C-alpha cells in the first residue's frame, strides 16, 4: 500500500513552495530533504536540542516537533532567510563570527534563530534575557559565553545603527 500524500503550500523565506508530502514527514526533513535548505540542522529529532529551530509566522519553534503538513498555509523563515539579499551573512551572523560564538557550528542555526526572535521582540536584552532566549538550544562546544557575547554585540550594533 502506498502512503497517502497531502498537498501543502508553505511560504519559505518569502517564496511560495508547494509539495505533496507524507503526513509523517517532519518539517525539518521537508526543509532539508525536499527543499534542500540544509542550513536548518536536524539534531536530536525529538525536541531537546533546538538545532532545528525556525521561525513559524515570526515565532521560533522546533521544526522536528511539527509535521510539514501542519505548516500548510503558514509562513517560515529559516537560517537561509536571515542572510542579506546578496546571500552574505546578516549582522547577527557576523556578530557570531566576530565573537567566536561557534566551533563545530551544529547548534548555530538554532541559536541564531532564537537570538533573532529575541532581538526582534526586545532590541536591548539584558544577559538574563539572552540566556533565557537561547535556553532551548544546546551547544556542546562553546560553554555559551561567546554566544551570549555575540548576541550582546549584535544588539549593540542594532541600537547604534538605528540611533
Amino acid at each position, binding site marked *: 500500500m502506498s*502512503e*497517502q500524500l*497531502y498537498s501543502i503550500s508553505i511560504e519559505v523565506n518569502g517564496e511560495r513552495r508547494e509539495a505533496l508530502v*507524507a*503526513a*509523517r514527514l*517532519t518539517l525539518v*526533513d521537508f526543509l532539508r530533504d525536499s527543499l534542500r535548505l540544509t542550513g536548518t540542522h536536524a539534531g536530536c*529529532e*525529538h*525536541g531537546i536540542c*533546538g538545532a532545528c*529551530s525556525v521561525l*513559524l509566522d515570526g*515565532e*521560533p*519553534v*522546533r521544526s*522536528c*516537533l*511539527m*509535521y510539514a*503538513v*501542519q505548516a500548510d498555509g503558514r509562513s517560515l523563515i529559516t537560517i537561509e532567510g536571515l542572510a542579506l539579499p546578496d546571500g552574505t551573512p546578516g549582522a547577527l551572523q557576523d556578530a557570531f563570527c566576530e565573537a567566536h560564538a561557534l566551533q563545530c557550528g551544529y547548534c548555530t542555526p538554532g541559536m541564531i534563530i*532564537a537570538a533573532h*526572535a529575541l532581538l526582534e521582540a526586545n532590541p536591548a536584552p539584558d544577559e538574563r534575557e539572552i540566556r*533565557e*532566549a537561547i*535556553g*532551548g538550544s544546546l551547544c556542546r562546544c562553546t560553554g555559551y559565553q561567546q554566544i551570549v557575547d555575540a548576541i550582546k554585540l549584535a544588539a549593540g550594533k542594532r541600537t547604534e545603527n538605528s540611533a
Partner: protein
Amino acid sequence: MKAVSFEYARPATLAEACELLAAYGPDAKLIAGGQSLVPMMAMRLARPAWLIDISRLAELQRVAMPGDLPADRDGVFLVGAGVRQCVIEGDALARAHVPLLARALRWVGHAQTRNRGTIGGSIVHADVSAEIALVACVLDATLELRDTSGLTAVPAREFFLAPMITSIAPEQCLAEIRFPLWSDPGRETVRGCAFDEVSVRHGDFALVSACAQLVVDAGGRCMRAELGVGGVGPVPLALPEIGAHLAGARLDEQTIAAAADTAANMIDPEGDLHASADYRRHLARVLVERVLRAAKEDAMRNLMEKPTA
C-alpha cells in the same frame, strides 16, 4: 527515529473532530501543539493510525472571564484547551486573574516549545512533573471533555490516574479548562501566589515542583490557601487538607515550616536515576516552604499596590 506512517485529518469544527474520534477510536490521536506527542511518535512510543489536527479550531482558542457571576461566589476563568502556552504567558487578563498559571508557564519547556505547546495538550499528556497539570489540580480546575454526545465535566483532581494516564476516553477531546476565580477577598485582604521547582537544568522536566495560592490579610494572617506538589507520585498532588489547616493561621516561619513538614510526610515519592526518594521528599519540604513564603510575600506586595479607595 521517524514516526510510523499515519493518515492526517484537519477537521474544520470541534464537532467534526469528535466524529472522527468516534469513528477511529483508539487508532486516532488528537494533535494540537504536538510538543509531547511528536517526540513520542518519533520514538515510536505512540503509533496512531490517524492524527487529527485540532490546532486551528477557533472553538478551542477562548480565553475569557464570564462577567455575569455574583461577586460573593467564586467565578471562573475559561481557557480553551487549544490555547498556546505563550498566549497565556502574555495575556493581561490571564495574568491578572489566574496569575499562578501564568507564573507556572515560565517553567514549562522553552520559548520554542511554548510557542506551539497548548494548555490542554500538557494536561492530557499527564506527565508526572507537568506544571500546568499541577496548577489545574491545586486550583481545583474543572476539565470539560467533549465527545459526540456532549460535554462531561471532570475535576482536575480526579482526572489524573497514573503517569501519562488520565480518565479521558479515546473518543473524548478536552475542550476547555475552567479555573476557579477566587472571590474578591475584600479591602483588607489580598491574594498572592508562587510556583517553584527544581530540575537539573531550567526547562528540563522538574524533579519536584510546588505551588501555592493564598489570601492573606494585612497582618499576615492566612484567610485561604491552596497548595500542592508535583513529581512526587504518579499524579500531581493537591494538598487541600494543609490548605484548610493554614486558613486562619498567621503565616509565620514556624507555621510555614510545619506545613512543609506535613506535606513531606504525606507524600510517598519513588526514587529513580535522577533523584532518590529521600531527595525528592527533601525537595518537596524545601519547595513547599519556599512557595508558601513567596506567595505570602507576593500577597504583601500586592497589598501595597492595591488601591485604597
